[in-house]
């Protein structure tokens, strides 16, 4: 596995819920991420999809240590060194930030309205003391040009710009420290359709040019399919399936994936959709169901599913599923 940039083992992120008692401690947790293991290859784009409450945003943030994981290990292969991100603290952590960055979802909230565009883009260099003086300006200009930002914009403030432009500023900021790994957290979800394409193209071009590795988190399945080489599906804090894109979309092996695929509206009025009906509602992440978490809604549920948790298995090369009946079920993909 020497081609892997990141290896995640049994990652858990539990958020404590404050007890209502006066000096109460915490007894309950929101198990946002509850035992996830996977790897991300260098230079690939791993898509991560899931519905609300799946925990996909939390995974991205905990890998970057914007949120601290409760348990588990995240190793990063920096040149020839293997660094355990969960063990980094204080100055060591700050020094490592340059290698991994985040592109936010909300272009209006992610830029400090009181800083000029030049300062916003320069921040990773200045805050981490990676460059000084003239060099900073040069690199800001280079990176801005890469993101197709007019140099005239550098002395303006964010309120001058549209959503798409702001997102490009955010991308420039993420790029300037020459990171190896970037988490795109719903980075195009808030943009208009006509602008989305532009930003997606930019992200893909930058990846091709600099060999970047992306973790692309989104809820729009078509967008994820377009940009990712492999896609992981999350449900209630756990992965249910992980496979190369076309495999996942055309021949899924997990019932939840099948349900997701059937629900995507096709841009073709001739085709009538037949979405799989999932019973009930998504359970609370505070109290996930025993056994397979999906069993309360699965159309193929059997007795075993209610009591035993399925194993995360590689049933084909690079195709992982967590389902007791992955081998026996024939599921329908999109198209």
């Amino acid at each position, binding site marked *: 596995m020497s081609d892997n940039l990141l290896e995640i083992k049994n990652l858990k992120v539990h958020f404590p819920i404050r007890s209502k008692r006066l000096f109460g401690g915490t007894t309950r947790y929101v198990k946002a991420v509850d035992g996830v293991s996977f790897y991300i290859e260098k230079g690939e784009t791993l898509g991560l999809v899931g519905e*609300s409450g799946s925990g996909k945003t939390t995974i991205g943030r905990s890998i970057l240590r914007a949120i601290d994981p409760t348990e588990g290990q995240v190793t990063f292969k920096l040149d020839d060194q293997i660094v355990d991100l969960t063990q980094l603290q204080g100055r060591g952590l700050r020094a490592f930030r340059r290698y991994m960055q985040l592109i936010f979802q909300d272009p209006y909230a992610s830029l400090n309205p009181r800083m000029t565009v030049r300062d916003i883009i320069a921040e990773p260099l200045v805050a981490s003391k990676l460059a000084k003086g003239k060099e900073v300006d040069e690199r800001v200009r280079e990176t801005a040009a890469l993101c197709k930002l007019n140099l005239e914009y550098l002395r303006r403030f964010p309120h001058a710009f549209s959503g798409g432009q702001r997102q490009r500023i955010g991308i420039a900021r993420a790029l300037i420290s020459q990171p190896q790994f970037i988490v795109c957290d719903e980075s195009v979800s808030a943009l208009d359709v*006509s602008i989305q394409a532009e930003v997606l*193209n930019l992200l893909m071009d930058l990846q091709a040019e600099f060999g970047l590795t992306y973790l692309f988190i989104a809820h729009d*399945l078509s967008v994820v399919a*377009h940009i990712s080489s492999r896609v992981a599906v999350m449900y209630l804090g756990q992965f249910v399936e992980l496979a190369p894109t076309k495999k996942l979309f055309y021949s899924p092996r997990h019932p939840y994936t099948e349900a997701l695929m059937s629900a995507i*509206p096709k841009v073709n009025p001739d085709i009538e959709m037949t979405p799989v009906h999932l019973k009930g509602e998504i359970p609370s992440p505070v109290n996930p169901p025993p056994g397979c978490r999906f069993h309360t809604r699965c159309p193929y549920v059997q007795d075993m599913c209610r009591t035993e948790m399925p194993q995360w298995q590689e049933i084909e090369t690079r195709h992982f599923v967590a389902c007791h009946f992955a081998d026996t079920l024939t599921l329908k993909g999109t198209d």
Partner: protein
Amino acid sequence: MTTEQTDWDALLEVQDLKVSFKTDEGIILAVNGVTFSVKRGQTLGIVGESGSGKSVSTKAIMQLLPRTAVVDKESSIKWHREDGEITEITQLKKTSREMRRIRGGEIGMIFQEPMSSFSPVHTIGNQIIEAVQAHGQVSKKQAREVAIDMLDKVGISNPSVRVDQYSFELSGGMRQRAMIAVALSMNPSLLIADEPTTSLDVTIQAQILELMNQLQEDLKMAIIFITHNLGVIAQVADEVEVMYLGQILERGTAKEVIHQPQHPYTRSLLRAIPRLDHIGGRLTAISGDIPSPLERPGGCPFHTRCEQVIPGVCETQIPALTRISSTHTVHCFLAE
């Protein structure tokens, strides 16, 4: 370009609707001469991005625009009532009894954010009961029965229990269903749905779309469905309108607009979205940004970004309506 005859098959006829807003920065023209009609039992899909004027147009129909909005005097919105009468909505006062009878009674509306559409301190049953009682002389008990019935119709389990719950006790999907229940409790002939599934998970979205299709069949209701998602439009709409910067650029049946788009904008939109039938192909972006309504381009609103712009023509003149078929029309010099 206004026609004075009315189409008797139509339920709603909008002619030359122009809406502007008075702001600190000046007068912004949000809707610039929009003409369309909706037939009984039909679903009209309106597709547009930010600034297209899609929401403002429908709010004008419901007279839900803020005080800073000005509807042009030449604009006309004709509503065909149940009893056969035709009402000119632009002539009604916002708070008049007639308008209130129409709004929520004959025309229902649902929005994008179900959480903010419900009062946090009233039960959802309460809100239906209030609506029912506001529109007719019914006792509280009868209204409650209607409420439970509606909640059941929209597929909410345990309606007699849910009717006494608050909106925060329901999940996103259920809240949206509840909102549909409120809107349908008065059996409207037209339902305006403004991005109703945009903030929902894809599986919930599929359920809600299915529900709406079914309710439409059962209640013979017309729907105006606003969204920016072409996939959703393809699934729900009979006819589609494509709006950009306050104008309708193209209109036709869903099949016509999606399979044979005539306007460069429609074509570009279809090329710009990722499609599952060809995963991995490069997306063709539309260059430039959507102009701010404060800086409206002259002539055809799309000319600043159009790849097939005709210099000298598109910047200065507004293209007239070109008829491609009995149902398919477009505003573009290329089609003329």
